[in-house]
């Protein structure tokens, strides 16, 4: 018994950061999944994460709010921003939307970089270590549960309809603009909470973490894992967080592997790794072969 807990203790202290990261990345991947599920390619989630991280960190550092309160604020702040820019931005579609959200992300990053209160390029240091494992697990579980319920409901069907054929969706009585805004704002909220959680266990944040590269990483996780369901983004987040650790010996070339994975998945597994339909078909063929 002691051997088990002893080893677990060692395991935990070595890998807890990694596991926390998987959790946070899973939340981020789910946040972009949400917007993708309604046909929106939004690259703003890294920026939303950044807003959540900074707002929550500043509230903790300067106003001493409780952790629960800063988490909530960390989610509400980017959600509010999403609400404001959402209406005009979401009128764009496809690539234009991607570009606009990218540009927005850059504006946010540069703003953070230049404000005094955010510590400028040096970032914020000394954020109290408030996040614990159970916070992440709980929030991830709630998010997965909430999104799963959403998917099965009329909202999920509306998203799917909008993603497939916006015009037909409108003519079925769906208020497309409102639903797109919902996906965008809710995605922003989740990303913001993820940012707040992250800030409170890495105790140091800087604008560099919330730019184009992070936005691309988040997208990669969702695309890699598969966007047909909720498990895909979590799988993708896990793989892309753990893989660089496993490949640590490759040093600089682990980015190379990341990029290669992206290309290969796009070419050979267009819907990502976890694609229920393909997996089911594969199983059927297996059974058929045995019989």
């Amino acid at each position, binding site marked *: 018994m002691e051997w088990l807990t002893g080893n677990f203790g060692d395991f935990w202290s070595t890998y807890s950061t990694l596991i926390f990261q998987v959790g946070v990345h899973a939340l981020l991947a789910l946040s972009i999944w949400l917007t993708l599920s309604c046909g929106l390619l939004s690259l703003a989630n890294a920026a939303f994460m950044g807003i959540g991280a900074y707002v929550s960190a500043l509230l903790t550092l300067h106003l001493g709010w409780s952790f629960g309160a800063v988490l909530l604020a960390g989610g509400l702040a980017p959600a509010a921003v999403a609400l404001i820019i959402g209406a005009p931005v979401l009128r764009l579609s496809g690539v234009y939307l991607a570009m606009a959200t990218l540009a927005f992300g850059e504006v946010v990053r540069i703003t953070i970089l230049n404000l005094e209160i955010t510590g400028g390029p040096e970032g914020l240091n000394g954020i109290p270590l408030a996040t614990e494992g159970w916070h992440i697990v709980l929030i991830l579980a709630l998010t997965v549960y909430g999104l799963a319920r959403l998917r099965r409901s*009329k909202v999920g069907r509306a998203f799917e309809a909008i993603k497939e054929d916006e015009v037909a969706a409108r003519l079925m*009585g769906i208020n497309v603009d409102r639903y797109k805004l919902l996906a965008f704002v809710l995605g922003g909220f989740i990303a913001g909470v993820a940012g707040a959680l992250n800030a409170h266990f890495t105790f140091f944040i800087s604008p560099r973490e919330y730019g184009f590269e992070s936005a691309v990483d988040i997208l990669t996780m969702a695309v890699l894992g598969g966007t047909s369901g909720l498990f895909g983004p979590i799988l993708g987040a896990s793989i892309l967080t753990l893989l660089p650790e496993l490949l640590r010996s490759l040093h600089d070339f682990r980015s190379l592997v990341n990029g290669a994975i992206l290309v290969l998945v796009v070419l050979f597994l267009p819907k990502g790794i976890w694609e229920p339909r393909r997996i089911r078909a594969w199983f059927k063929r297996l059974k058929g072969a045995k019989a």
Partner: protein
Amino acid sequence: MNAPNLLSIRNVGKHFGGLHVLQDVSFEVPAGSIYGLIGPNGAGKTTVFNLITGLLAPSSGNIAFRGESLLGLEPYRITHRGIARTFQNIRIFREMDLLENVMVGVHEHLNYGPAALFFNTPAYRAAEKRARERARELLTWVGLDHKADLLADNLSYGDQRKLEFARALATEPKLLLLDEPVAGMNPSEKAILMEEINNIRERGYGVFMIEHDMRFVMGLCDRIAVLNFGRIIAEGTPDEVRNNPEVIEAYLGKEDAA
């Protein structure tokens, strides 16, 4: 007997820059009737549908539904008012199964909020159950219920049209706009659809269709309007229209044997 007509199109014009697609188009669709819109290709028929459903705004004129103007309304609001539509080139949701496709149609009639959704309340469950049952009912009505769990993409052409029909009915419309509903169907399928449209007329729905199949249109519609080069050249009962010299001329060589 002075109830407003179901659909009232008055002096509607539409132009794109210098291109006049519709000019001074007027007609009335009375409640509980089946109305047809025919005309050579490119006459502007689908544009009329696009104007009614709010996808386009008329350059001039007015469109009123049950006495209230539809101008300036968003398409989804027009659907809420009671107008549903099918498409010439079929726009079903291919990646969803049949049941889900029809359930999308029920969307606006499901009134639960985020709390009910999140906590899986009895009210939510009951609403979803009703939606599912209604969808099944409609699928059964068009003869597709045994395929309810199939992906819409896997349907045959004729079945896809039936699905679109069922989905449009799911929105509980008072007026159903059908854009070439029998294109690509074989005679027995057409006969079945003719039967179904007559049935829904009996249930009080109004139907407004665009079609090229003359036998279908003449056999089903109470009144027909003929559009040519963006203008109405004739309007009346099938017999009146059939014998109208202008109509015959417009269709010279293009008319299916009546």
